Every structure is written in C-alpha cells, then in structure tokens.
C-alpha cells in the first residue's frame, strides 16, 4: 500500500443546504453537439490571471485549434480558434462578468469547413513522457479548471509537490446544472484517461473520485470505466448530496475530514482537486492534440422548450444555445451563467460562451429573489449556521454596509466562497452575497491603488534624486571652472590678459547662458 494514501474518513462540512435539484430538466438526454455558428466571439480575459495577447491580424485565416492569443504571465492561458475561418477584428460585447460590463471580443468568422490545425499532434506514448512534457502540453492547450474557477491547470500542477493525492471532483451540487453528470455518464473513459495523465504529471499514485449520491447513472458509468481500466490507484467515493458539496474546500473536508487552511491552497495539505470536465479536456489535449475549444454546457430552465446538455464551442453566442434548447417561451426571462445560487446574471443573449460557462440558465422573473422586500438585519445568526466557510455573514454585512472594508476583511471576507446559502436563509431577504462580492471588489481595487501609489512614489522620488544629482554635478563643475580661473588670474601677466578679455566680453553682449536642456 502506498504510504501517501490519504485515509478516507467520511466527514461533513459546516453548514450547507439541502436544495431542490431541478436536474431532471436537462440530464438523461445525450450530450448534443451544437451546429457551427457563423461567428465566434472570444473574450481574451475569460480565465483567471492576465488576459491573453492576440497574435493574429485582421483578415488572417485561422484553423480550428490554432492559437489566436498567447498566454500572458505565469497564470494566464492561450486561447485557440474554435473553428476554421477568418479573423474579423474586435467587437465590444457584454461580457459574462460582474454586472455585465462590456469587453472587446476577438471575432472569428467561420468558413464552414471546420478544418483542424495540425500544429499539435497527440502524444501516443504519454505514459512514457516526462511529467514536464505533459504539463507543457496542458498549458499549450489552454486548459483551465472547467468547474468555474478557470484557474490554469498547468499552473496548479506545477505548484503541487510530488506525491499529492488527486481528487476528481464529480460532485456537481448546484441546482439545474448537470454537465458533469452527463460527461460522467457518456465519457467516463475520457475522464479516467485524463486522470491517469494527471497522476503522471503530478507524480502521484492516489486518486479519489468523488460523486454525489444523487447521480446513480454517473456512478455506474464511472464504475464500469474503472473496471475496464483496471487501475488500482483509483477509489470512487459516494458523498452526500448537500449544497455546496462540490466546493473545493467543502469536498476536501467531506472526503478527508481535514480543512484547507484559510488563505492556503489544497496543495498545502497534499491535495489537488480537479474537475471531471477538466480531466476529460486534458485527455483530449494530450492524446489527440486537441486544445480546449469546446466544453459541455447545461442549457436549462423552466422557460426553455427542450433543455439539455450540449457540446458547445467557446465563443458561441448564448442566443444559439437557447435556440438549440428549444427556444425561450418567456420574453422577460432572465439569463444566468452558472446556477441559481452562484451564477452571474447576463445582460442579454449576445454574450459568448466562455470556458467557465458550465450552465446557461433561463429563469422567469418570478423565480428570482429581486422582488422580495428587504428588512433590517435582526442578527438571528441563521446565515452563520449555514455558512460552509464558517464565517459570520451578518457581521461582514454590518461592516460592509458602512463601507468598512478592512474590518470586513478581518472577519474573513476573502474566505467567502460566494455560495449564496446565507441569502437563501436570511429572513430579512438581504442580498448578502452581493454585498460580499462588492466588498471583495473594493478591497481588490484598494490593493491595486495602493500598489500604483507606491510605484508612483518611487518614481517621483527617483526623479527628484536624479534632478538633485544633476544640479549638484553642474554646480561642482562650475565651481571647478571658477577656481581654475581665479588661479590663472593670480598669475601675473596672464591674469591681466584674462581680465581684459572678460571686460571685452561683458561690454559686447549680454552673454549666452550655457544652461543645457535635459529631459
């Protein structure tokens, strides 16, 4: 038995909620590929870390899987063309981000041929490849965490020490979403294959696959795939379905009974957590040389004609997803990227699919919490009871309401996972999570501003020092000249001659300044 194997002590994380799944709407039907779109819109800042740097010119022909924007910074990722076609420049579109801000998106017009780029070929013998080669391939293929955090997977692997335990996260816990469920039912072999590649890249020999108990079909399919693979490094764990069991920290606590330290990472306690969809994408990238240009997305909601799981290309406008899911029969329906708990409201249906889009949810206005009357906080503490991060939401709310960001941070604002449990139980209907998202943004902005100010201060001081130095040098030079002159004047005949020249100069012109210009 491997000594690094982590004993599984079925635990339970703090708080959480039993929620109505609404998953039947979309799950159970096969994953359907979406037809080709006319145009794709690629948001270059769709992942965690720095925005990718475009490397194609307007009018250029690109092939499917060709890099159109390069990785920037350590934690960035490249972005690839979702199909073959022509680059049409940038267009401002509403982004699937906080408060629907606009962003410029790289437009690629499809030529309908969908020819693949052959820059990368599959590594047929990946099981003999060096871990570094595998990590490099994962980075080149633009793989990010598809569970929603969109953190570069290669950077995650690079930060883990050898011998960690890999956790495959198949605990899709948010209502309505079933893309991972569908993936496990249909592509269990790809997931296991991806996990095997990950184990090699991580230098690890221990993998726990965690699936919620309310997905029996997915569990059965994964068991079959595991039996076929005959790999003893894998263990399958059925966990209680409780929202948010799929949260990284909550899943780790459920599986191991251990808590990831606040401000730390799972790697700190010898664990790496990867979503099942990410594992499948890694398999395609390494074995088939297929970069991440598509993902499985749940398109669902009570107002859609035929909800389901779809294989969509990154950059497809969500309008086409809705059309594929039977259209929307409520003109006032609201679109949400993600689930009803943590999702981000979308401004309209022009928003393109991004790597983080695990679900597109259309809800009637009546299903949203907007209309409810807010009342003052009565300090009942219900929110603290359900908080899976063991925080005091009511206290952070009181601080944030009066814009006291620093105290809110001391109460653990950074550790909030924005799961929305507190909103659900709040008897005063306070939009607590909205406050926390806003507060986090403000804290981030303050940090950036402080860094900028410090930088400007250094440059200001450096400039002053330089100007002072130049002035001192000039004065020293002048003083030396003056001294030499005095010395010469005290020297008999020569002195008289010099005095005469000075007198002549003074009478002829007002004199030229010898001050030079600097800059």
């Amino acid at each position, binding site marked *: 038995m491997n000594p690094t194997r982590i004993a599984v002590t079925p635990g339970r994380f703090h708080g959480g909620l039993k929620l109505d799944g609404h998953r039947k709407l979309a799950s159970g039907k096969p994953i359907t590929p979406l037809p080709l779109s006319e145009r794709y819109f690629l948001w270059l800042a769709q992942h965690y870390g720095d925005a990718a740097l475009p490397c194609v010119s307007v009018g250029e022909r690109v092939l499917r899987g060709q890099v159109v924007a390069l990785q920037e910074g350590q934690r960035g990722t490249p972005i690839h063309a979702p199909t073959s076609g022509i680059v049409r420049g940038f267009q401002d579109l509403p982004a699937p981000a*906080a408060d629907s801000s606009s*962003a410029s998106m790289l437009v690629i017009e499809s030529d309908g041929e969908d020819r693949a780029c052959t820059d990368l070929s599959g590594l047929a013998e990946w099981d003999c490849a060096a871990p570094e080669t595998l990590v490099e391939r994962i980075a080149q293929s633009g793989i990010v965490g598809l569970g929603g955090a969109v953190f570069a997977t290669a950077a995650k692997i690079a930060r883990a020490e050898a011998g960690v335990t890999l956790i495959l996260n198949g605990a899709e816990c948010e209502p309505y979403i079933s893309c991972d469920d569908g993936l496990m039912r249909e592509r269990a072999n790809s997931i296991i294959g991806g996990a095997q590649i990950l184990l090699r890249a991580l230098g690890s020999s221990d993998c726990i696959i965690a699936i919620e108990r309310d997905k029996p079909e997915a569990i059965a399919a994964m068991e079959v795939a595991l039996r076929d693979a005959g790999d003893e490094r894998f263990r399958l764990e059925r966990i209680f379905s409780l929202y948010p069991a799929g949260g990284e920290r909550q899943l780790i606590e459920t599986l191991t009974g251990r808590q990831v330290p606040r401000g730390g990472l799972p790697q700190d306690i010898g664990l790496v957590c990867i979503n099942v969809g990410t594992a499948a994408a890694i398999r395609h990238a390494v074995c088939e040389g297929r970069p991440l240009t598509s993902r499985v997305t749940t398109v669902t909601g009570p107002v859609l004609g035929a909800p389901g799981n779809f294989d969509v290309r990154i950059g497809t406008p969500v309008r086409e997803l809705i059309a594929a899911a039977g259209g929307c029969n409520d003109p006032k329906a609201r679109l949400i990227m993600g689930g009803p708990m943590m999702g981000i409201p979308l401004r309209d249906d022009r928003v393109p699919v991004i790597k983080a889009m695990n679900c597109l949810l259309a809800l009637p206005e009546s299903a949203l*919490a907007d209309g409810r009357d807010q009342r003052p906080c009565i300090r009942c503490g219900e929110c603290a009871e359900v908080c899976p991060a063991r925080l005091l939401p009511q206290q952070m709310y009181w601080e944030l309401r009066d814009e006291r960001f620093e105290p809110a941070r001391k109460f653990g604002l950074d550790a909030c996972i924005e799961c*929305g449990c507190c909103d659900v139980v709040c008897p005063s209907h306070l939009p607590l999570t909205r406050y926390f998202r806003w507060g986090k943004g403000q804290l981030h902005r303050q940090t950036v*501003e402080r860094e900028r100010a410090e930088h*400007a*201060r250094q440059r*200001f001081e450096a*400039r002053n020092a330089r100007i002072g130095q130049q002035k001192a040098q000039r004065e020293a030079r002048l003083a030396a000249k003056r001294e030499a002159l005095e010395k010469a004047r005290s020297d008999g005949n020569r002195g008289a001659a010099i005095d005469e020249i000075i007198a002549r100069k003074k009478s002829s012109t007002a004199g030229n300044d010898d001050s030079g210009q600097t800059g």
Partner: protein
Amino acid sequence: MEGITAILALGILAALLGLVLGLAARSIRVESDKVEEQIDALLPQTQCAQCGYPGCRPYAKAIAEGEADINLCAPGGDAAIRALADLLGREVKPMAHDVDPEESAVVAVVDEPRCIGCTLCIQACPVDAIVGAPRQMHTVIAAECTGCKLCLPPCPVDCIDLAPLPPADNGSAWARPDARTATA
C-alpha cells in the same frame, strides 16, 4: 523632622520620575520624519501639486509640520481626509477643492501626429511617464501615468488629452447592491 522627610521623599520621587519621563520622551519620541512618512503613505501619490506643494511628499511634510491643512488633496478625496484625520487625531473637514467625486481616474494621452517634440511635458511630468527627445515624437507610458494633468499647461500645441483609465480587464467590479435589487 517628619516634614523634612516628606519633602525629601517627594523631592527624590519627583526627580526620579522626571528622569524616567525625560528618557522615555527621548527614546520613544515619534520623529517628525516618521509622521511625514505615515502621512505620505496615505496620500494617492498622484504628484499633481493641486494642494499647492510640489508633490505628495512635500505636502506630507507641510502637514507634519503643521503648516498645511488636511483637506487639500483633491485626488485623495474624502477618503484621504478621513484617513489623515484618523492618523493625526483631528476633525474631519470638508474638501477644500471643488471635486467631482464621480470623476474617474484618467491617464494622459499624447496625440502623436500633433506633437512637435518640444520636451516641455517631459520636464513637467513628476513621475517620468513621458518618453521622447527634442524634435522627436513623445508618448505617455500609460502604466506609469498618475493622471496629474501637470503636462497639459506647458504643451504649446495642446496635443495632450486625458483618457479614462481602462478598467481592470477581468471585471471584478460588482456594484454595491442598492436597497431594491437582490441577488438572483
């Protein structure tokens, strides 16, 4: 006799305590340099000179020496006044300048075809954010520009404009939830 003992005892006590206080004042005195630094840390480092001093550090020095009031920093706004009042134990005052609190951060942009290469803006820039040479085109390094607007007056051809600072591209800017809308 008792009176003399009492006077002696109190006298010695007073002398000892005085010595202790004197030493303490010397060893834990807050140097005016340090106050200046603390004040400087609260200022936005725009170096715009709107306060009447040639930069943030000189203004910090003036505050530390009691020459300047704490409500002169326009880019810092009310937040800076509050922070300064907090640090110095003074009353919060209304801002001395007419500033629009909604005004967004800006950076200077040189309209390059119009630039004649006079280098005057380069000499005016307090943070060396403009590059160029005599009779050569100049340009602003946006990442270094503090938006202080000091380069605008010296330009003889008015070729410098102010552009809003591009927001962080990963859009983490959730607005403050107002009383009516709640999260979905």
